[in-house]
């Protein structure tokens, strides 16, 4: 219980940092913290392989990508111009509070369907073997679909970021034609 409380507290702190600090680099570092804490929570939930993946893929690879783009675009400057939607922040606060409160209330109406000890045993500690088996049997089709999606995403991002190649216009380079002629 103590572990959970500490981890959740740190998760929330990380989340608050993420959404509140002005510097983008700091915010992403806050997110990294949150992700690590969530990985810890996964571990308390008997999802060890998932926790590892969370650290490696999310906190590692994805966040590096984020930082990379932030640096590339020099986007860690906060936005300076006037906010055209001044009413959003308070409304978002109110809405978010209602949402959070409502979720919390709904969460505490939830009763575990069976004793946790019993169900925890069935998870086999979330080891890579059983998880992989599920993924490649019952989830084979989604798995393949997601694979294709990833491929498309990779191709797509490359295509999006690529600058159009400048094509040589023979008419603007009269020399080229002449050279050819000379060769002939």
């Amino acid at each position: 219980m103590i572990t959970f409380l500490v981890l959740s507290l740190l998760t929330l702190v990380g989340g608050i940092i993420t959404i509140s600090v002005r510097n983008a680099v700091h915010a992403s570092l806050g997110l990294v913290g949150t992700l690590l804490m969530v990985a810890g929570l996964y571990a308390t939930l008997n999802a060890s392989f998932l926790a590892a993946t969370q650290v490696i893929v999310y906190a590692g690879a994805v966040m590096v990508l984020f930082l990379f783009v932030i640096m590339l675009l020099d986007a860690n400057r906060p936005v300076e111009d006037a906010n055209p939607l001044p009413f959003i922040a308070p409304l978002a606060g109110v809405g978010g509070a209602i949402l959070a409160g409502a979720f919390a209330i709904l969460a505490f109406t939830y009763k575990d369907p069976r004793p946790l000890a019993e169900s925890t045993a069935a998870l086999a500690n979330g080891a890579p073997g059983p998880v992989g088996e599920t993924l490649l049997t019952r989830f084979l089709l989604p798995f393949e679909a997601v694979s294709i999606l990833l491929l498309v995403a990779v191709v797509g991002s490359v295509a999006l970021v690529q600058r159009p190649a400048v094509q040589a216009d023979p008419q603007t380079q009269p020399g080229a034609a002449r050279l050819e002629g000379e060769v002939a």
Partner: protein
Amino acid sequence: MESVPTSYYIALSGILFALGMIGVLTRRTAIMVFLSVELMLNAANLSLVAFARAWGDLVGQTAVFIVMTLAAAEVAIGLAIIVAIFRKRETTNVDDLASLKG
């Protein structure tokens, strides 16, 4: 070792989700909006894992893998879009991208 009830995890997930939502709404840089979206995704993942434990079924955890993959794809495309837009318009402010006005 005593187990923390699922409700706690779900409540945490809900609060985290709301936090991410507020971030999406209040932050004006596209990058920051993305970070907040990641926060919301993690909140959702957390609840999935918590329910997986409650039912003793690995399906919940497997679903999280797929969501993670989706998130990775989304980040790749999303960041590429941001870069492309930045090249074209020299900004990452989402409020400048209001051409969908009805």
